[in-house]
């Protein structure tokens, strides 16, 4: 049944242009980050590592959370409009499956975005002629970044489920990202869902020692994701839906 729910989600998204946002938005930080790197090449001397900070610095805090917010809002909007909740809730499917299927769709998108970000990073490094080898940590940055992204997805899906507006959850994601920056600066990064992505991606300086061990990071990601899934399932189970 769960597989069929996922397939239904995929059908809903089939002709929608959502992937375009995920495709286009990472290009911006890549191009502008590379440009910025070239302009400040005398200060930024760590080659690949410096380039990475320029690519990820702003996108981790402000843009990835908000883009995930847009995507999650879109997924629930399909149900919030046109009396679709009635159909969704009367289908012989557990409510949790609906949420989980959507989470899987967003997570897939997050993972693909990470792959795309990595590809753009390597491409722009090669284009500007960085000749030393690509940092071996790149894979782990992308991996932990994806984990952090999934945490945000779970949270944003919950917010967009509760708040039936499209725009407000996106605004909350942006504010969340900024608050994430503050939490990170204060050293509470691991306790705050929006900071996990920049912790994972080493946005403020890949050469630095990691603030937390990767085990701590994974546990935090899993706990947060589990918690938001639980919240969403409880909400779906207890609350009566509002159509229109």
């Amino acid at each position: 049944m769960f597989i069929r729910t996922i397939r239904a989600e995929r059908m809903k998204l089939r002709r929608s242009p959502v992937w375009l946002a995920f495709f286009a938005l990472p290009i911006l930080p890549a191009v502008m980050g590379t440009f910025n790197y070239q302009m400040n090449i005398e200060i930024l001397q760590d080659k690949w590592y410096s380039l990475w900070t320029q690519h990820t610095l702003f996108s981790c805090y402000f843009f990835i959370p908000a883009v995930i917010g847009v995507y999650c809002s879109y997924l629930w909007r399909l149900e919030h409009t046109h009396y679709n909740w009635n159909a969704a809730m009367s289908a012989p499917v557990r409510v949790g499956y609906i949420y989980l299927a959507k989470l899987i769709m967003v997570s897939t998108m997050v993972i693909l975005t990470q792959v795309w970000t990595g590809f753009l990073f390597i491409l722009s490094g090669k284009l500007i002629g960085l000749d030393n080898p690509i940092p071996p940590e790149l894979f782990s940055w992308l991996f932990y970044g994806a984990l952090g992204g999934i945490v945000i997805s779970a949270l944003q899906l919950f917010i967009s489920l509760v708040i039936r507006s499209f725009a407000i959850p996106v605004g909350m994601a942006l504010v969340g990202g900024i608050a994430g920056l503050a939490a990170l600066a204060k050293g509470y990064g691991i306790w705050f869902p929006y900071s996990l992505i920049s912790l994972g991606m080493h946005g403020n300086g890949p050469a630095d020692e990691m603030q937390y061990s990767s085990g701590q990071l994974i546990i935090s990601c899993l706990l947060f994701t589990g918690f938001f899934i639980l919240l969403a399932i409880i909400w779906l189970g207890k609350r009566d839906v509002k159509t229109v």
Partner: protein
Amino acid sequence: MIKALAIEFYKTHRRKIFLVVMAMIAAQLMWALWSFSRMDVRDLEQGWISSLFQFTLLNSLMMPVICAVVASRICDVEHKGQTLKLLNTIIPSGHIFDVKFLCGAFYMILAVLFQILTILITGYLKGFNGEAPFELFGYYLLFTTAVNLSVLLLQQVLSLLFTNQMVALTVGLTGSFFGLFSLFFPQSFQKFVIWGYYGVLMFIGMDWDRATRITNYYLTPIDWAGFVMLMVQFLVLYIIGRVIFSHREW
């Protein structure tokens, strides 16, 4: 027209748009207060202009999204309720476009006024040197509002024309990105996109000395040509947006 405007405010009455704007401004405030809390004597000396500088930076990052959220909140009701067809029978569609814009503009102007109020309060509490430079605040109000309203207009056009609000919000996010990044780029680049005008119309420059770690703020000449260019863009957007919206079959 007045009645239509009143109806617009009536519609937003329980949609808590003001709360949304305030929440975003509150996030800005936290940021500002955090940076004010670390001020030393030197910073206090140039407190007024440094805070105007900081707020412009924050605006170029956050205002595009705030505009997108406000515009989407105001326009999306009609898509959700499929009321545009109905509205068009009683109000000319051009008027709908205008009142929606005025309604959004009201919230955006309030937001800037609120920012200035906060700078004033924190300034007097922290004891910034000298009298508050009201002339500079006037320019800040004028320029920030001009850019905000242009961005709001763009967002409104998108939110009205595309039922799928994702389009408008994605453009808003892209705008934030451009706004922020264009600050690091030369002026000629900033003038290309509407979101770059937060930087174009910024009248405070900053010097950061790497060796001494001292930051110096100074006034730069105001780019009136840039302001005129922004106004032209605003007018073009307004005319095109209004015409397309009016001729659309709902």
